[in-house]
């Protein structure tokens, strides 16, 4: 009140939006740093505008190819590649989930002892850090060309995704529910089954559906390094500038992803 009364009547009181970062030195330092970085980063990209200009024509041909995709001329390749992609997707998701669950349990700090926790977290970190395609290269080198390498790659990638999110979910569970089950004198497995599982099950199912979707999208590139699936056909199509075949493959991928997303939405809604 004293603030109000001490102001002389009619004096203009200024108001400015308080800045997001209070300390002016830090604020201007960050802005300046960001600007310098942007300039340096942009400068590091060399653009050959002549090449880009020439490419526009090819780009336009590619866009046009979408209006008349060619499913026919390489139909056998497309069909076999797609089936192989789907097969790898399903098999690797199932195996991936089966391995993720124990690792996820082990990586949850509230139920696992420290050594187990560290090992499981280590596996998750490595799996997440290495891009699928890098793993696929190694797997092809070890197991030879073909869908087996792709299957192992995707299973390994699934672990990093699913086990991490499952572990985080378990760590977020309601402690009192788990405690109540423990207090009944059940064994460790009973405790997990009654105290933890009901809390994380809906999300685990949702995440598994989501991972199925991701695995399919990833399976489309594994063929680039010889690990099976539609990627090999797609790569060939690009190499020969057969944009209409490439468009056909891409459209097929999009349609399958959309169908998978739609059906997983339906399943998740029914699970709730």
């Amino acid at each position, binding site marked *: *009140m004293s*603030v*109000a*009364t001490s*102001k002389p009547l009619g004096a*203009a*009181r*200024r*108001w*400015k*939006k*308080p800045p997001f970062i209070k300390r002016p030195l830090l604020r201007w330092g960050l802005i300046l740093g960001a600007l310098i970085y942007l300039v340096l980063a942009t400068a590091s990209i060399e653009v050959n505008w002549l090449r880009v200009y020439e490419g526009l024509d090819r780009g336009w041909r590619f866009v046009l190819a979408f209006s008349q995709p060619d499913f026919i001329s390489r139909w056998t390749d497309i069909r076999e590649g797609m089936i192989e992609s789907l097969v790898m997707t399903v098999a690797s998701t199932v195996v991936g989930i089966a391995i993720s669950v124990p690792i996820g349990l082990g990586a949850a700090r509230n139920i696992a002892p420290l050594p187990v926790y560290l090992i499981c977290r280590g596996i998750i970190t490595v799996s997440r850090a290495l891009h699928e395609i890098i793993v696929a290269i190694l797997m092809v080198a070890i197991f030879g060309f073909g869908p087996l390498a792709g299957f192992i790659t995707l299973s390994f990638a699934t672990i990093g995704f699913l086990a991490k999110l499952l572990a985080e979910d378990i760590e977020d569970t309601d402690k009192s529910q788990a405690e109540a089950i423990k207090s009944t004198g059940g064994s460790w497995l009973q405790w997990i089954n009654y105290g933890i599982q009901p809390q994380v099950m809906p999300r685990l199912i949702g995440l598994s559906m989501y991972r199925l979707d991701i695995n399919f999208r990833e399976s489309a590139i594994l063929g680039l390094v010889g690990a099976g699936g539609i990627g090999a056909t797609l790569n060939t199509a690009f190499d020969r500038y057969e944009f209409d075949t490439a468009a056909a493959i891409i459209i097929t991928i999009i349609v399958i992803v959309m169908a998978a997303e739609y059906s997983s939405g339906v399943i998740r809604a029914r699970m709730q």
Partner: protein
Amino acid sequence: MLQIKQLLKRYPTGDLALQRVDMAIPKGQVVALIGPSGAGKSTLIRCVNRLVEPTSGQVILNDRELTKLNSNALRVARRRMGMIFQEYALVERLTVMENVLAGQLGYVGFWRSFLRKFPQSSIDEAFRLLDRVGLEEMIDKRADELSGGQRQRVGIARALIQDPELLLVDEPTASLDPKTSRQIMRLICELCEERNLAAIINIHDVALAQMFVQRVIGLRLGEIVYDGPPTGLQPDVLTEIYGEEDWQATIEKVDEEDEEEAAAAAVAVAVVVEEGVGS
């Protein structure tokens, strides 16, 4: 000043929320709108500023037919109708000052509001209103740091900076404790008196309504079933509005509390008047 004629609202689900409601409110009158949940109170005040589009009927503010306005004219009309909400409806991640200045959005252009460069007159008025509602210390706090009562005061300041002729108030006290509820109701009614504003206040709490307003309208299933002074709310009237219940206790309680309240109110008003003069 405000006339509502044959106002009817049917929701797409088929529910008839308002059944040809008629009412007229003169300048400076504060009206409490009471009724059970689902009686159409919220729909009614939202039909006035067309946050909800009425199905048929007329809303006339100062000889201007609101239901026929195009979107630009509607925005101009909305500037003169301040609205106060149940859950405050402040933009929680903006500061108190920005929330109050949001009431000026209808008056300034997009870029000025985007860059937060409001005219000095608006800023002066915002400072004055924040002093008046007792929040001068909170100006640069974020809205989600405030308590319920403080938030509703910001909501009131935001409505008043619009320089309205009419206040539409939707359950202003529903999320507040009993003491804060009274303070907020009192503040709203005092401000209406100071500025000679008309107001429609939706309110659940019959006792609170009787305490502060000159006129009560009872709504049931989208129809007006009572329109008169607060003293006329006898048990049979309340039964008609809300249904069978023992109303005697409510009414007696109000009478007792009124006496205590009157004494407390006298003190509070004196304090506020001093403050008002001071600023």
